[in-house]
Each structure stands twice: as C-alpha cells, then as structure tokens.
C-alpha cells in the first residue's frame, strides 16, 4: 500500500512528519506500538490514518476533557463525521443516544474513568475494536510526574476488551516510564517508535533576574522587542490577565489573556484570533496550547517556574512548528521555585490532614455514619483536589471505619512517594536553570538519548545572539478598518464580493 497516497486521499497532506510513517506502518502490520513523538509532530495522525484503513472501531483514551473536545472538534473540522467524545460534558440523555448508535462511530474518544465503568465497558465489549489508543500514555506510570490513578485500570480494561491492537502515545517519557507503560498494559512484542525530544530550531535561554520588579521590566522589554507571534506562560489566571492588560498598554501590541476560567465561547475566539493573526501575543496559563496548530509561533516565554521538565518541553514545543528559528526564554528570580513547591503540596493531602481525618473517623463505626455528621466540616480542611484524590484512592462509601483506617496508611505512603517524585521534578528543572553547560544536552541526557548534533543556534550557554529574534518590521495585520461603516464590516465578515451595493 502506498501510504503517501492514502495520506493525501484522507487528509490532503503530501508528506509525513518524523515518526508518523514508521508508527503507522507498524500498526498496519498488526504490531502493538509505543510511539514517542515530540509535541507538534501530529501525534493524532498516527491513529487517524490507520483508523481509516483498519476494520472496526478506534477507541481513544484521553485524560483531559478540554483536550478531548479540541481533538474531536479538529477531526470534525477536517471532515471526519463519525467521531464522538464520551465524557461528563454529555447529559445522561445525550450519552444514551450515543450508546444506541455506538456502531456508527469510527472514532470514540473516552475518558479513563468512563471506560472503567462496567456498564460502558459492556457496551464496548460488543464492538469490534480495530485499534485501542492510549493518548498521553505516560500518565499510566506511578513514577511519572503526571501519574493519574484512573490510568492504572487501563491494562485491565484492555484485557476485558480482548487485547485489541494497541497504540500507546506520548510526547515525553523517559525509558523507565516507557517500560512502565508496556508493563501496565501487558504489552509484549511492542514496536517502539522513539523520536528525540529535541527540537533543533528552538533556541533555549534562561535569564536570571535579581527580583520581581526586574523580571517584570525584562518581560516588558522582551514583549516589545521579540518578533511575534508568541506565548507567555503564567502560573495563575489572575497574573495572566493583569500582565496581558499591562503589556498591551505598554507595547501597543495586540495581546490578550487565555485561561481556563474564561467561558468556552471566549476561549475559542481568543484561540482563533491568535491562529488568524489578529493577536500578536497570548498571555496564558497551561490551559493554552493543547490542540493548537499554529505553525509560526516565534517565541515562548515562561514567567513562572515550571514544575517539571516534561511539561516545560511540551510548552516550548509549541514554538517553531514551521521549523524556522524560534526561541524559548525562561525568566527566573531566585526563590521562584518556592511557588512550584507550594503548588505540589496543596495537590496531595499531607500527613497532618490525614491524621485529623483519621481521628475524626475513629469516633464512628462506619463511613456513612461519619459523613452524615462530619463530612461538611472535614471538607473545609482539604482542597478540592486533595479530597478528590483521597476519595478516589481510598473509596470511602459504604465502608467500615476500620477498613478505611487500614487503607489510609497505604494512602499516606503513596502521597509521600508522589510528593518526593514531584519535588525531584522541580529539582531537575532547577538544575537546568542553573546549568553552565549546554541546555540541549541536558534534556537529551534526561531522556537518555544518544548524543545530538550541535545546532548553530543552540542555547545561551553555547552562545547565540538574541538580537536575531527581534522583530524586523512593525507588523500590522489589521484587516478590518475601524473607520469602516458597520455595513462594510458586516459585508467583509460575510465574505461578500465587495461593491458599492454593500456600503
């Protein structure tokens, strides 16, 4: 089979990106495949094309609701009609409708929680499954930063579905995490398609600044000087918003914030404005970027301290997909990492909280008795995330207090080890910031990759001139002239052939 001709037939694309063809060929030869392809190389094509050629339904496990929605919308946009997402966005009735017609769909996206439900699993068991895809497969590993307990059951799910042909996809996973993925899914005889995490056309820079004021001033300079389009990442919604407003005022560039607290309608608009060249810079939280296919992003700046190497690489990987020279800059003030440490500590319940919970429980004999009297009060002691993780791990309902207390011991150990892993991730990031040698080699070393060829523009430690990333000309793509009459604007929006009739 000529894969290139199929690629053109289904996706109007003329060539594969690195790794795609190899992974697709393996799948078409009926080999389980683990593919690690860097961000921006079109991972989803690796299951979309085989999906078109293989018989049966393609099931895609995806961890994040927003990511799932984006992927489904993008597939629909590209003309794929038989695709559906089963997640908590659907009402009970909509979900029933989907299940009634489940056979009509070629691609079924589903969250790990949902596929673990017996009811849903029984429906899926009746299908002929052509391909079982686990996206963001590194979430399966206990040793990984992004571990999600819901992912642990996927090996069991796969088994119950009759061990269908499987594709595990990830952008970033160290060799030990890749081993973990294979073990959890009980995959033997796996074809591994591993591509370097290195993106040679992205220059790497970390800038040390004396304090918050200096850092802000430096960001203002960079915003003014750097050739756009660009993304600036912040740790909080509020900061992203404030800085967007301030940078816009000071630089005169078209800048807007983007974060998960905005309405869906607004988020779509900002994303599309950025794609369409109506915005120069987006000040974003980590919610921005997934599912964004913009080729010409020239810079990514991190204003906060990233909590891990993996997510940092994914975020900077949004730059330079057109393979032209781009730059990543991390702005660092000594002590910035403290916020990252605090953040991880509020994600997991700590020893003290668990002790408190245990003491309170011990006054009752069953969980249900306890929850009637004490639950509301206790919820005040935990963050939402903490309680969700606790409830998911210990499974409280209908249990005797004795059973729970036993489980809490294990859970406390689990939390402690998770915390240690996360702290280690921050330390890796910190040593990268303080690095005196090549920043690129550090990353490839972290993923235990072989030596890479050196780039002419590598990192600040190898030396390069940031001036080559400054804007050459003032950009002004304003397409709608604000002095135009509203009718003229309307005619433009509606794509009317211009003429005096519309003025």
């Amino acid at each position: 089979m000529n894969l290139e001709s199929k690629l053109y037939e289904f996706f109007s694309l003329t060539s594969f990106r690195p790794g795609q063809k190899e992974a697709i060929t393996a799948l078409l030869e009926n080999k389980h495949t683990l593919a690690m392809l860097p961000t921006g190389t079109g991972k989803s094509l690796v299951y979309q094309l085989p999906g078109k050629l293989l018989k049966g339904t393609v099931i895609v496990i995806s961890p994040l609701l927003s990511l799932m929605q984006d992927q489904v919308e993008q597939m629909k946009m590209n003309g794929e009609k038989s695709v559906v997402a089963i997640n908590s966005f659907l009402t009970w009735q909509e979900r029933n409708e989907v299940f009634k017609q489940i056979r009509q769909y070629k691609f079924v996206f589903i969250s790990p929680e949902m596929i673990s439900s017996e009811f849903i699993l029984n429906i899926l068991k009746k299908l002929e499954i052509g391909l079982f895809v686990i996206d963001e497969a590194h979430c399966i590993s206990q040793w990984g930063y992004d571990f999600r307990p819901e992912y642990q059951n996927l090996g069991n799910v796969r088994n119950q579905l009759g061990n269908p042909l499987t594709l595990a996809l990830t952008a970033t996973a160290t060799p030990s995490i890749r081993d973990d993925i294979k073990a959890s899914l009980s995959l033997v005889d796996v074809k591994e398609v591993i591509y370097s995490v290195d993106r040679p056309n992205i220059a790497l820079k970390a800038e040390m600044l004396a304090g918050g004021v200096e850092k802000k001033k430096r960001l203002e300079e960079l915003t003014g000087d750097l050739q756009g389009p660009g993304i600036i990442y912040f740790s909080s919604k509020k900061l992203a918003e404030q800085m967007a407003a301030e940078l816009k005022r000071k630089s005169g560039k078209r800048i807007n914030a983007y974060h998960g607290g905005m309405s869906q309608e607004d988020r779509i608009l900002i994303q599309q404005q950025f794609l369409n060249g109506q915005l120069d810079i987006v000040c974003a939280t980590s919610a921005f970027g997934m599912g964004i296919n913009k080729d010409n992003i020239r810079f990514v700046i991190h204003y906060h301290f990233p909590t891990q190497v993996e997510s940092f690489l994914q975020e900077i990987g949004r730059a330079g997909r057109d393979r032209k020279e781009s730059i990543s800059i991390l702005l660092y003030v000594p002590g910035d990492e403290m916020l990252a440490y605090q953040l991880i500590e509020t994600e997991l319940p700590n020893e003290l909280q668990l002790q408190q919970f245990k003491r309170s429980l011990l006054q009752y004999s069953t969980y249900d008795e306890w929850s009637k009297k004490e639950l509301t009060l206790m919820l005040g002691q935990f963050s939402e995330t903490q309680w969700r993780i606790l409830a998911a791990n210990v499974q409280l309902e209908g249990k005797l207090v004795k059973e729970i207390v036993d489980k809490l011991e294990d859970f406390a150990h689990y939390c402690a080890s998770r915390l240690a892993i996360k702290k280690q991730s921050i330390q890796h990031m910190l040593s990268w910031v303080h690095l005196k040698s090549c920043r690129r080699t550090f990353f490839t070393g972290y993923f235990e990759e072989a030596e890479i060829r050196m780039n002419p523009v590598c990192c600040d430690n190898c030396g390069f001139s940031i001036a080559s990333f400054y804007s050459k000309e003032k950009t002004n793509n304003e397409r709608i002239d604000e002095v135009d009459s509203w009718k003229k604007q309307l005619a433009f929006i509606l794509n009317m052939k211009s003429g005096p009739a519309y003025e």
Partner: protein
Amino acid sequence: MTFIEVIVLYCLQRIKGERTIYSVLHILNGKKSAQTIQDIHIFKLKAIFQTFPNLSRANFDSIILSLNKKAWIHAGESAQSFVIHPKKEESLKELLIEYPIPAHLNGWKYHRITVGFWERLSLSIQVASHLAKGNNRYMPVQRNIAVQAWVKQTLQDFSTERKKLNEHLFQELAACLEDEDIYPEYLICRLTGADHIGLTPEQAAADFGIDLSYYDMCFLSLLHFMLQKILAQEDKFPILRKMILDEVSDFILTNSTKATYKLILKGYSLEEISNIRRLKMSTIEDHIAELVLNIPDFSIWEYVSKSKVEEITKIARDIASKSLKQIKQQLPDATYFEIRIVLAKLGGGMK
C-alpha cells in the same frame, strides 16, 4: 463607578427596602421563582430580568459593600435590606442620564430566547461566510451540539443556492440593524467570518472604551431590539425568524405552571389540583401568582373576595408599600396568598 453598581442602585431605589438585597441579585440572575417573577412586575424591573445571569453572590456582596462604603446606600429597617441615601437620589438620576439603561432592553420578555438566538446567529454567519469562500474546514464558534445540528438542518432546508446564504443574511441583517436608535457596531464586532474572528465581550468593551457590564447590557439590548423587530415583521426576515425558538406564544410561563393552568381551564379547584399533581398547596399558589402576572385577563375573583381586593388595594396605595408583611399587619384576616395575587394584579395593571 461601574455600571453594574448603577444598576444595583437603580433596583434598590425601586424596591425601597421592601425586599432583601438578594431579591435584586435574583432579578439580575433571572431566577425563576414565583417571588422574583412577582417582584419584577411589582417594582417594574422587567427590563433588567436576567441581564447578569453569571453575577455571583460573592461579587454581588462586594458591590453592596462598596456602595455602602461610598455612602450611596445604608441599611434599611428590615434585615438584609438596603436603601439609597436620600442625598444621593439626585446623583443617581444624573448617573442614569450618563449611562441610560438601554431603551430596547426587555429581559423578561426575551430571556428564554436570547441566548439561543445569539448562538444560532453567530454560527450561521460563520458558516455562511465559509460557504461563500468555499472553505469547509474551520472551528465552529459555537460548540453546543444542538445549535450545530440546527444550523446543519436549516442549511439543508435552505432552498436557494447555499453559497448565496451570505448575501441573504447580509440583506436581512442590514435591514434589521438599520435604525437610528441603535448602535449596530456593538454586535458587528462580535461576529466571526472566514477571514475575521470576532471579539470577546471584554475586548469589545475595551475597544469601545466602556465598562464591561455596560457593554454587556447594550449588547443584550441590541439582541432584544432585533428579536422585537424580527417578530414584528416576520415576512421581512425569513432566515433570522428561523433562528428564534418557536415558543413565543407561551414562553412566559414555566412548565409546571402551564400544567396547573391546563387543570384550571378544566375547572378544577386549587385543592383538587394540589391533589392531582401531588404538589403542595403553596406551590399551586405560586403558580396562580405567576398566571396572574402573565395572563392579562386572568380572573382572580375565584380566589379572593371583591371587598378584600378593594381593601388590599387601598392599603397598598395608602402606605405606598408592596411589602406583604406590612399589608398583612394592617389587614390580619387577609391571607398572604390573597395579598400576593392582588398585588400581582395591580402590578400587571400598571404595565
């Protein structure tokens, strides 16, 4: 001073401390309780019903706090009530001249159909623009599956050439928005086409240099203007008319009230309806109050004697109050239900 503060002041001025401040929040949120529905009629606040559906209690509290701090308002006699400081009445008047409540705003009449209309309109425009360009790959600005399905279906029914949909839409929109009274730019800037993505409300407000809450209200008023014009001249706007959900004839009643109303028309008493529907008597009474408010010729004589109607009316006028409690104190043998429906009728009559 933000516009939302002005609106809250405006409401507090109308209710004169006879309700708690949260009745104002409920009106702005568009809560569909019998009490709120009654309040907007009695205090003539129908226009602003559900103008800020996402205003949270916390934000509302901070608005009240800030108004209190700036001495615009002070605590009223009953708990959780605030009234305008007498000295500030004049300043409020001036504020309302500077930021007038948009003339075409009609929250109560159109609240059920406004959002749906906007979703269909914005998506249809995007689709029409892309069709004209011959482009079928784009991100829809509306993700609601029902809205997407509606647009698809409507396109299939569209008799003339699909590529020309943009021209038809243009003609209808141009005719609809051509009016001295309005400022179409508030809507146009939000629209997305093949080569241009619309603004978010925040961006639009910033571009026009106005407060976001004021922009939101002007935008809403513009949609209400369109709804009114389209429904009044259906033949002139065949495509736009289709974007309006077809419940115009009875959209003012809640579903449960509709069910009660059907039984009333069959001649059942309130007790019987309460039994048949297995609902509390007080719920049925809420339904009656809603019916009185919304059906101009709904008769209340079966539920309250003529003499009591006169007495309640007189007291309400004398003490210039619409507080149920105060009237009840003056007229102990009238029930709250009787007072409510008489007040509702009075409110309706003052329309």
